[in-house]
């Protein structure tokens, strides 16, 4: 509860700062302080210190997994604000409102990690996406940004409609919105009703929309490409992973109950293969690094879907690991990308000569995304593949996953090739020494988590 209330409250504080505080550059510091407070409040909550005793009537259920994920999301946002705060200020006059919306999105993330009622799932998803529509269109004069916002909005509200239909049908079938359904105790609604299955299929489609899994991924490249780079960085990482956390909970509770009636594993394996195929094959042909990262986010979503397929302990651990590896690496890559004047592969030519620190940290981020050993990304992929092997069925999905991971190395290494083995003069915005330091710390975290995964997992138990 702490994190939910603090994030909403600090969002309102930021909102009022927009006319109470005149100094543009202080917003970023206020936001950073707010995120630190939020992180502290969430850690207090993890160890049982709840500042607000609010009876949510079983609508919210707190788990250690959810708290740890909240902490990861808040910490990633903190790193994001520290690294790209200056670039957010360049976006326009409404810096304080930008941070307000970031806090509101975090409120949605915290709801999604703790929901136990389909109403809360719906509200969480909406609190998450409505600020994002605004953030996507925040570059008002830029036609590409406008277009991305309109596209995202139309697609997003359509998928919300699908989700609501699914929830309504599930309610018709079971008579409750609670996730951990009470119908097992009551003898009224024994058995699985047809309505519930149809409702779950609707929900599956809309959640695939939200996390951009094939065949509902078509909006992703356009929106990620059109949105301002600082927004894409946030949208492709924290928000997407939060969607997966919500999806995992839905799967483990409701879909596992109905698995006798419908073969979810088959459906998920098809979605995984399609997502990996579309994401990887189209990423190869991109000329712009930003668009390549958009497609690569689809293919990474394919790997995160493995967790929904297997739904065991390895899966939840793997998803946690993936959220760390994927969020941090992508935030780092985008932090460098927004400093570049030219975001095509040619723009990166010769970066290693002029900016060796940036090139080296970028290389580590790319290694992590590609899943090279000793980085967090490797362990994340390892856990995902292991989780499927544990289930003992559909081993061909594992083979396909390894194959596509090998393909992904090609387009990630194109950036490294451009940075190290080509000559050129990359044009960049100015940046300070603290920016470099931030990138080095980020790269260090990725390697430390990759080398000592227990540092992360111990948090789940102690």
């Amino acid at each position, binding site marked *: 509860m702490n994190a939910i209330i603090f994030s909403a409250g600090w969002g*309102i504080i930021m*909102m*009022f700062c*927009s*006319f109470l505080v005149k100094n543009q550059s202080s917003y970023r510091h206020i936001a950073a302080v707010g995120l630190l407070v939020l992180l502290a409040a969430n850690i207090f909550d993890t160890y049982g210190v709840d500042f607000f005793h609010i009876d949510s009537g079983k609508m919210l259920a707190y788990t250690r997994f959810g708290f740890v994920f909240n902490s990861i999301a808040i910490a990633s946002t903190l790193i994001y604000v520290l690294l790209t705060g200056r670039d957010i200020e360049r976006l326009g006059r409404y810096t304080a409102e930008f941070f307000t919306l970031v806090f509101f999105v975090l409120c949605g993330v915290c709801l999604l990690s703790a929901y136990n009622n389909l109403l809360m799932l719906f509200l969480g998803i909406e609190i998450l996406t409505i600020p994002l529509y605004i953030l996507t269109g925040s570059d008002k004069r830029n036609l590409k940004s406008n277009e991305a916002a309109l596209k995202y909005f139309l697609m997003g509200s359509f998928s919300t409609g699908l989700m609501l239909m699914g929830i309504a049908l599930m309610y018709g079938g079971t008579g409750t919105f609670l996730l951990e359904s009470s119908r097992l105790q009551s003898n009224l609604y024994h058995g699985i*009703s047809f*309505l519930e299955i149809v409702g779950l299929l609707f929900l599956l489609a809309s959640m695939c929309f939200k996390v951009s899994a094939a065949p509902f991924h078509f909006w992703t490249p356009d929106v990620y490409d059109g949105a301002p780079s600082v927004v894409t960085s946030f949208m492709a990482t924290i928000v997407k992973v939060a969607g997966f956390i919500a999806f995992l909970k839905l799967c483990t509770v409701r879909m596992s109950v109905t698995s006798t009636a419908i073969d979810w594993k088959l459906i998920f394996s098809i979605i995984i293969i399609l997502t990996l195929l579309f994401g990887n094959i189209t990423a190869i042909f991109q000329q712009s690094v930003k668009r390549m990262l958009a497609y690569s986010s689809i293919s990474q979503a394919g790997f995160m879907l493995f967790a929904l397929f297997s739904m065991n302990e390895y899966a939840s651990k793997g998803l946690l690991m993936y959220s760390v590896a994927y969020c941090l690496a992508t935030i780092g890559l985008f932090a460098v990308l927004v400093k570049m004047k030219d975001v095509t592969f040619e723009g990166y030519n010769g970066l290693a000569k002029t900016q060796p620190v940036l090139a080296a940290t970028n290389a580590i981020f790319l290694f992590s995304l590609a899943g090279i050993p000793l980085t967090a990304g490797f362990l994340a992929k390892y856990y995902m593949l292991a989780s499927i092997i544990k289930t003992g069925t559909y081993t061909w999905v594992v083979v396909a996953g390894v194959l596509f991971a090998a393909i992904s190395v090609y387009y990630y290494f194109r950036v490294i090739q451009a940075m190290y083995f080509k000559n050129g003069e990359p044009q960049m915005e100015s940046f300070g020494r603290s920016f470099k330091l931030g990138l080095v710390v980020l790269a260090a975290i990725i390697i430390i988590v990759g080398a000592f995964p227990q540092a992360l997992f111990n948090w789940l138990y102690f």
Partner: protein
Amino acid sequence: MNSFVYLLDTVVTGNSADYVPIGIQIIFAAGFVATVMIATHLLGPKRKTAEKLENFASGIESHGNARQPLAIKYFLVAILFVLFDVEVIFFYPYAVNFKSLGWYGFIEVLLFVCFFLTGFIYIIKKGALKWED
């Protein structure tokens, strides 16, 4: 759900005679509109002048094209109206349970109104409701 579940407490006979009043009403409504329209056409005198053919706008002379661009503040006020208008919906369940919720419910609603008010103060401070430039 094999058993038929009836939602309204009326006795349902399944007899098509139940729909006769509705049919009569539809026929009457359509007939009334048709009669009045035909009657006015036949009875009314027709004197067409340029002034009479003008659009009637509460006696104010209309000028220009209706599709000219409007100032953005109209949209802004309309959008804000939609937001604040619909939020009032939460007062309905409160009004129904006004007595049983007691002071606890009153404080909750007060909190809700406070959140509302913060939003309202924000839009006023931002000058969203300022009409004169």
